[in-house]
């Protein structure tokens, strides 16, 4: 993605541009589009020497693209038993001074329809340019904002109908095999199981125990889903060397999400060896094969499928070589643990390293594998293309590849004197299709919970009248510290996979959706604790205190 942009911006021949990606800090999506890269190229072209371009923290806030605010208007219709039959939604998103906005409403609209089975849906989505800094992709791509509205509305509906927030969600959630509002068949959805898991984890049905003092406790629950955008092609090479060691060449990003580890695990599983024995070579446009980008939680699915195909290609070549060696059809050979295992011959196994012939500079007619030249398996994976929706009814059989789901339940304490909201207990369950690395999936859930519970309660960009950020530093824009997270025993991360038929080992992706239900679960818990319904994130102490005062004055119906 970066290379074609640099080539076209600066009119450089492709052969003159080489991109090597170093390890980067976590960016959560906002480095998806090139921002510092063109600056560095410009400097290098002017000075004709090696240059480094560094953003200070304050420049990062002021000009680095980040998340954007969305206002959502929702009307829902339901039967008395809680079955939702219609929803009408209007979405307004503030895209800031983003020039080349790719926002066409589909991502936000998808967030609003991917969780519940609603037969009649009407959505209008508007992207508005303003004077605030440009916006960029950020974890969830609008889903946390839009679904905050959807989930609050579902809670409101449950209250009107006198059924519990858990029950109304279980009643309306989409099930595998059903069609969503686009008309797509849902092939993997663990949403209902996620809900049940988090409900059990915090004993959602049991009321909170209240203590004397200003803190009032309450419990809340919410659900979330997020589409995966079909972002084109991923390729991978797998090299099996004559000494049996294996390398995988990939070009997906590694920003700490563990993509390299997951890819090494897939290779290890395919070859029946330890993941430590797999070396990953990564992201160099002169060496590693093409990958569109790592975005939309797609790496495990997209690059993972390419790695799987590359492994199978290499294994096929090894099976053919072993078959030739013993005179047997390749399908009777299996490659496992550095050996070719053979059925139907008196030779039952051969070390893979023995399939490579010694190198001799003078020998003629050296067919087959040769020492020093690895077997190269190549894999190309292009997800099934999206089909544009029809103008007349908005329906399409395939809008996206798949959806990731998660549910959060929290217990909060609200200080009725200051408006402060603390999360005292919580659980998030995520459906990632299949957890290739369960510990890393847990880590993504925990990080997502921390991030979302902080921006739900605290984080907010403040602008001056010209749209400049005035709190652009860690001093004034507070990201959560360890003291903002619950004690370890009070948070559970739960893996609730529902296999995706076309994912590697059934895996899809996960790390965005676990931010989606956190905000609405906190809002729901605040209502349970003190009977007010915040509708704006962040649910800051000031806003909560104002709502509490309004309630006292009788301005808000509880």
């Amino acid at each position, binding site marked *: 993605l970066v290379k074609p942009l640099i080539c076209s911006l600066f009119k450089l021949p492709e052969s003159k541009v080489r991109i090597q990606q170093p*390890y*980067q*800090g*976590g960016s*959560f999506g906002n480095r998806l589009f090139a921002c510092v890269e063109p600056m560095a190229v410009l400097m290098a072209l002017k000075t004709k020497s090696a240059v480094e371009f560094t953003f*200070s*923290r304050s420049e990062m806030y002021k000009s680095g693209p980040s998340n954007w605010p969305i206002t959502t208007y929702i009307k829902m219709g339901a039967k008395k038993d809680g079955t939702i039959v219609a929803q009408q939604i209007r979405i307004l998103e503030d895209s800031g001074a983003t020039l080349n906005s790719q926002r066409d409403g589909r991502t936000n609209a998808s967030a609003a329809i991917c969780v519940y089975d609603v037969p009649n849906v009407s959505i209008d989505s508007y992207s508005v340019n303003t004077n605030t800094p440009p916006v960029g992709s950020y974890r969830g791509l609008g889903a946390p904002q839009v679904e905050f509205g959807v989930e609050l509305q579902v809670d409101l509906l449950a209250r009107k109908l006198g059924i519990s927030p858990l029950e109304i969600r279980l009643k309306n959630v989409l099930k595998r095999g059903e069609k969503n509002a686009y008309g797509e068949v849902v092939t993997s959805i663990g949403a209902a199981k996620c809900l049940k898991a988090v409900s059990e984890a915090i004993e959602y049905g049991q009321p909170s125990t209240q203590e004397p003092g200003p803190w009032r406790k309450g419990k809340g629950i919410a659900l979330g889903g997020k589409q995966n955008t079909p972002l084109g092609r991923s390729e991978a090479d797998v090299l099996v060397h004559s000494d049996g060691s294996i390398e995988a060449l990939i070009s997906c990003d590694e*920003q*700490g*999400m*563990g993509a390299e580890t997951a890819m090494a695990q897939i290779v290890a599983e395919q070859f029946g060896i330890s993941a430590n024995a797999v070396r990953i070579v990564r992201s160099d446009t002169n060496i590693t094969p093409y990958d569109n980008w790592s975005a939309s939680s797609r790496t495990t699915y997209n690059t993972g499928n390419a790695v799987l195909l590359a492994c199978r290609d290499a294994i096929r070549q090894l099976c053919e070589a072993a078959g030739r060696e013993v005179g047997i059809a390749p399908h009777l050979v299996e490659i496992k643990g550095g050996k070719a295992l053979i059925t139907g011959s008196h030779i039952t196994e051969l070390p893979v390293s023995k399939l490579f012939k010694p190198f001799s500079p003078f020998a003629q007619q050296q067919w087959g594998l040769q020492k020093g030249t690895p077997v190269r398996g190549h894999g190309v994976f292009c997800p099934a293309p999206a089909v544009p929706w029809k103008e007349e009814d908005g329906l399409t059989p395939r809008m996206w590849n798949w959806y990731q789901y998660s549910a959060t339940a929290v217990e909060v304490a609200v200080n009725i004197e200051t408006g402060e909201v603390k999360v005292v207990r919580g659980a998030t369950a995520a459906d990632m299709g299949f957890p290739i690395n369960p*510990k*890393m999936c*847990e*880590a993504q859930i*925990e*990080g*997502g*919970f*921390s*991030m979302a519970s902080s921006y739900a309660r605290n984080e907010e960009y403040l602008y001056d009248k010209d749209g400049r950020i005035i709190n652009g*530093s*860690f*001093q004034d824009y507070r*990201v*959560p*510290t*360890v*003291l903002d*997270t619950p*004690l*370890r025993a009070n*948070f559970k*991360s739960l893996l609730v996979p529902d296999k995706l038929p076309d994912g590697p080992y059934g895996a899809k992706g996960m790390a965005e959706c676990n931010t989606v239900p956190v905000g609405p679960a906190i809002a729901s818990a605040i209502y349970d604790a003190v009977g007010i319904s915040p509708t704006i994130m962040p649910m800051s102490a000031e806003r909560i205190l104002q709502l509490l005062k309004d309630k006292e004055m009788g301005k808000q119906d509880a």
Partner: protein
Amino acid sequence: MPEEHPATIEVRLEVNGTPHTLMVDPARTLLEVIREDLGLTGTKPGCDDANCGVCTVLLDGAAVKSCVLLIGQANGKSVTTIEGLGTAENPHPIQQAFVDHFAIQCGYCTPGMILTAKAILDEHPQATEEEIREGLHGNLCRCTGYFKIVEAIEAARDQMLTTPKRSLAAGGHAQ
């Protein structure tokens, strides 16, 4: 006449056990000297205003934020950076615990986290979860949500309590 600042001052530092005598512009920070003059880039810049903790080093054993420490303030003192704590072959128990407990995602905060953890455990070898959180709240991490970091420090604490101190002296200088 206002007193003129000298262009450079002499600074004596012991970094990871090695003594250094440097002529340095007094307006520079310890972080800049560590990264640029000594080439020890394990110590990271993050915010330049002491809010994020990725630049944390140990100064005479205490965790300090090197981005706001003028180099003169470190004169005559002993500095431990992440490079001085352990090696890949012989990691410090806290480093090993961070790996074992998946306490690292992008890794940018990790050197500061580990050095802060060392200062916490040196001062309170039996630190509770609450004490670890209290000591760690000046170090920001955007990836992990902190759960696995605290878990790793608790695991390192338990291991260090049951292992004789001598055998923990990984990578030379650090105890």
